[in-house]
């Protein structure tokens, strides 16, 4: 694999909130600060895929960076604050804020979606950033929700991302929900999930109907995910290693050769 492919794969695999740490490590490993330029395409892809969030100078909340609100030349726009901004993919900082008025046949729908999604998000995400953008020549609408919680002092970081493409004429809503959790105290544990979602609303559905469908799917997914933790713990994890032997006794190491002679160790083998 080429050098740049290897470096890109590192950036691609960066956990939530740790891009600066990964970049710093790469520079030190290569003994080369100028690698930053080489990493630019990987940074851009990472930030757009991961729905990087950024606080605009003078703004209140954080806005989303994605492939769907890119204006080119490193600029992106936000519907709610009606502004566009330059985004530095290496430092994840915004600058050069200008006013931006959305021009779309769906601009009313987009604004109602932003409002409905905001109401839903405030009820279920302690801290989330949202993005609703017309795409594909105004034929479809991209709907993004991203929630991050970073706790590096406790060695964990997490991200929930959901992205949907809503087609107003057919009523189809297709998307994915992705969860990424990193825990790294005396180790490195990662949860990565990816769930496809396919929903449908009526042809003349309003914004709140669209958001209601999305809200139901996300609730169902979180419930299923919680159940999955339980079944992995009770299933595969227990099958890998018992907490105690079938006898409920720890091994008597002083008599270990006796276990052999008696052939009495195969307690659970017949299953």
């Amino acid at each position, binding site marked *: 694999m080429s050098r740049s492919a290897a470096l890109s794969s590192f950036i691609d*695999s960066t956990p939530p909130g740790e891009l600066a740490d990964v970049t710093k490590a790469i520079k030190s*490993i290569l003994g080369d600060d100028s690698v930053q330029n080489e990493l630019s395409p990987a940074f851009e892809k990472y930030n757009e895929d991961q729905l990087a969030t950024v606080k605009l100078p003078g703004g209140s909340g954080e806005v989303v960076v994605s492939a769907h609100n890119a204006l080119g030349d490193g600029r992106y726009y936000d519907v709610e604050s009606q502004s566009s901004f330059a985004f530095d993919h290496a430092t994840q900082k915004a600058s050069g804020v200008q006013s931006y008025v959305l021009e779309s046949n769906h601009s009313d729908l987009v604004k109602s979606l932003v409002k409905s999604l905001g109401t839903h998000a405030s009820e279920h995400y302690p801290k989330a950033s949202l993005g609703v953008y017309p795409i594909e020549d105004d034929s479809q609408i991209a709907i993004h929700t991203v929630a991050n919680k970073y706790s590096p002092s406790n060695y964990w970081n997490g991200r929930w991302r959901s992205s949907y493409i809503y087609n107003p004429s057919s009523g189809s809503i297709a998307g994915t929900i992705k969860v990424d959790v990193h825990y790294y105290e005396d180790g490195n*544990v990662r949860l990565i999930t990816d769930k496809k979602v396919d929903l449908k609303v009526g042809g003349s559905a309003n914004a709140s109907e669209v958001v209601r469908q999305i809200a139901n799917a996300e609730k169902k997914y979180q419930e299923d995910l919680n159940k999955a933790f339980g079944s*992995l713990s009770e299933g595969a994890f227990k*099958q890998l290693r018992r907490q105690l032997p079938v006898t409920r006794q720890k091994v008597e190491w002083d008599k*270990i050769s006796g276990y052999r002679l008696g052939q009495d160790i195969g307690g659970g083998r017949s299953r």
Partner: protein
Amino acid sequence: MADPIDSALDLLRRLNPKDVKKNVDHLISLNPDLTEDLLESVDTPLAVKKCSKTKRDFLCCDYNRDGDSWRSPWSNEFEPPLDDGEGVTPSDRTRKMEVKANEAFDVYRELYFEGGISSVYLWDMDDGFAGCVLLKKSVSSSPKTTGSWDSIHVFEAQDRARTAHYKLTSTVILSLGTDSEALGGLDLSGNMVRQVEQDMAVEDDTSHVANIGKMVEDMELKMRNLLQEVYFGKAKDVVGDLRSIPPLSQTNRDRQTQREMISGISR
């Protein structure tokens, strides 16, 4: 700038642990000076080889490796055979302990893992000996759930008068995954490392095997509990911190009511 090897280890602590082997290969190609340090200090899932003499499977790591050959704990011979001579094998005394330790951990493996593979390798040191205990098990069940456990226990035993000082570093690599229509893809993988030092009584070489057995057993019990907590407790809690199933306004109201009740009682 930080030492490149420290940065490489920091990077591996951050990138997806499922790709650790691939990432180590990348790091080596990016900075060949790190090769030896990385191979020595990064634990990757254990490879399995078959002992051609005994037809039994054994586990491979850096400690039983000589070039592209690995020493079988069952036959004490290298697989595949070494071109140039016999390779490094333990002294007679240490090999005797190694045989006993392999028998003992074979029992342990059956009791706790009910399957899987175990291998123990020992080598001589100036003031005692050192070794590693390796255990591996994989499961796959329907619907499309897979899991694997690799434990790597590396220890040193320093002989003292009637006691020995043991230093144990244990890594467990645990990987779980499911893929189904209903849940989609889920991968929960990682590794955790713990260290412990202990002085224990020694009568003869049999005591060493029992002492190491007890230490490894206690450590695995502790680490299994820790893994349970992190994989199924912590990960789930973080998801709950990102998104709340009950509406937050309800949760906040409940908290408010609870606070009022508590202050009412204390009044």
